[in-house]
């Protein structure tokens, strides 16, 4: 079973939860920008939550499924169709062999995840199937997909990809229409807790080591003014435009570890939040860090979107993260109970 890329959209790449354990040789994490949406998409098709899926950016691809497939779309609000039928998000959808799915522009948000039962089975590299586009590492040499690419899909247990399954049909199978090319489950997840539809929720920051080195007005401006996501933003970093932030006096810093979520301040005064493809080390002042629980939300902002930051403590940031993980664990359990196989 394979998926053929007919057109790639703006930027579509293979992503899992990222590359862990190789940062000492300069290899960063990469992986899904909105890791929560990736995990939910995988759960909806019965995969391990860190299975490889497609990360779709801003405008979607056109894909042909060589065999029957069970897919799920999560993340940004999007229109997707297979021939004349709608492919709704946040639920399992069965696509018949030969089906062509066309995914349109995102109405809100920046990234959609398409998971498929069995996962995208490209060869792992350094323990991950993620494309690190900036480092040119991973499947397809770390590049975004192009027309003609063939994506191998992992094998699935018999019965997991079945359009007549009760998970898709509800309790009654009497209305099953053998001619359908697309069968969407009648149940779906509420995107609300997992996707900020209005894109206005504030993003929580914990102070960085060099926050105190900002001048007084910059310390205020970070939390009181709105920033705009710059056009140069990508999977490596979000460049924020707004109030120029300044240090009270220059710092002589040497390179040391940075992580996704680290907010650096280069000399031009526009802060950069490092994202999934963050380098492993950096030498700019670290004025703040996006709380891990809010990083997927920031990843859904698109160039031009506004961002407000609020200050949080380490304790509160970690408490919110653990609450989210518990809610996700409950959801994964209830989804698994609805799926066949």
């Amino acid at each position, binding site marked *: 079973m394979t998926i053929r890329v007919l057109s790639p959209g703006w930027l579509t790449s293979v992503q899992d939860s990222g590359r*862990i*354990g*190789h*940062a*000492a*040789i*300069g*290899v*960063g994490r990469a992986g899904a920008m909105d890791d929560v949406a990736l995990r939910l998409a995988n759960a909806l098709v019965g995969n391990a939550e860190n299975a490889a899926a497609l990360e779709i950016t801003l405008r979607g691809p056109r894909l042909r499924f060589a065999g029957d497939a069970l897919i799920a779309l999560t993340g940004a609000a999007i229109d997707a169709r297979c021939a004349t039928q709608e492919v709704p998000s946040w639920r399992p959808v069965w696509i018949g062999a030969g089906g062509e799915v066309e995914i349109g522009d995102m109405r809100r948000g920046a990234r959609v995840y398409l998971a498929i039962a069995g996962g995208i089975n490209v060869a792992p*590299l*350094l323990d991950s199937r993620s494309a690190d586009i900036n*480092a*040119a*590492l991973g499947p397809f040499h770390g590049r975004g997909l192009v027309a003609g690419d063939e994506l191998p899909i992992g094998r699935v247990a018999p019965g997991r990809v079945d359009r007549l399954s009760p998970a898709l049909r509800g309790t009654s199978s009497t209305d099953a229409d053998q001619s359908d090319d697309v069968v969407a489950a009648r149940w779906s997840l509420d995107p609300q807790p997992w996707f900020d539809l209005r894109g206005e929720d504030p993003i929580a920051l*914990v102070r*960085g*080591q060099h926050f105190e080195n900002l001048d007084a007005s910059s310390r205020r401006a970070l939390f009181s003014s709105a920033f705009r996501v710059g056009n140069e933003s990508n999977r490596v970093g979000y460049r924020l435009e707004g109030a120029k932030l300044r240090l009270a006096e220059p710092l002589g810093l*040497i*390179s*040391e*570890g*940075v*992580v996704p*979520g*680290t907010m650096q301040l280069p000399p031009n005064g526009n802060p950069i939040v490092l994202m999934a493809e963050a*380098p*492993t*080390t*950096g030498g700019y002042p*670290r004025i703040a*860090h*996006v*709380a*891990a629980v809010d990083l997927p939300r920031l990843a859904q902002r698109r160039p031009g979107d506004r961002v407000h930051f609020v200050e949080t*403590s*380490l*304790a*509160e*940031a*970690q*408490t919110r*993260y*653990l*609450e989210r*993980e518990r809610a996700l664990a409950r959801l994964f359990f209830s989804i698994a109970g609805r799926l066949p196989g």
Partner: protein
Amino acid sequence: MNPFALEPLGDSALLVRLGDHIESATNRSALALAEMLRAAALPGIRDIVPAYASVCVHYDIAAFANAGAGAAHLLAAERVGEIAAKFLEAETDRSDPVAGGESSLLEIPVCYGGEFGPDLGDVAVHAGVDQRAVIHGHAAGEYRVAMLGFMPGFPYLLGLDDSLHTPRRASPRTRVPAGSVAIGGAQTGIYPRELPGGWQLIGRTPLVLFDPERAQPALLRPGQRVRFRAIGTDEFAALMQ
């Protein structure tokens, strides 16, 4: 030995700081501490990244949650701090802080100057010597990989002779070829693949610095001792085969 400091790096990583300067002894300590943390295999530690004077430790918040919801960062710092304290105690007891930690010496062939080292002339002018003296000075030194960063397999090398310290170029290049051997301020390094960069290019090595398909993807690892050997274009071409 100075005491260490633990600094949070957001809510899922922390830094063990051993110093604020690029200095060989501090860097050796950072590399040795990173090894000790790796060997300790603390549950919930996702990555360990040594740098010039610090070690960055990435952790999984959930793995330290049994300390209470808001106290995971305290427990992570306590566990890492215990190992750092033990390490520094043992290091203070040793007369030579790096005894036994010495790696082998790797020779890196470099074709200096010409099209491979377009900035060799500028480096020579800055040093007030001729190009041959720059080549001789660069190849005579012994270097050690302080850290990797910026890109997979990019080594920051300590040991550049003071006379060869050269400021970065005023306007960075958009494309620096793979294998370029370069000087940036007091540092020297090698570009593992074609990248943008602002360092002064003095030569190029035919060796492949990073290949993810190799058992050891990075040719140079932190702590590796390095020497450069000047080669001509014929040998460069032969080694590229």
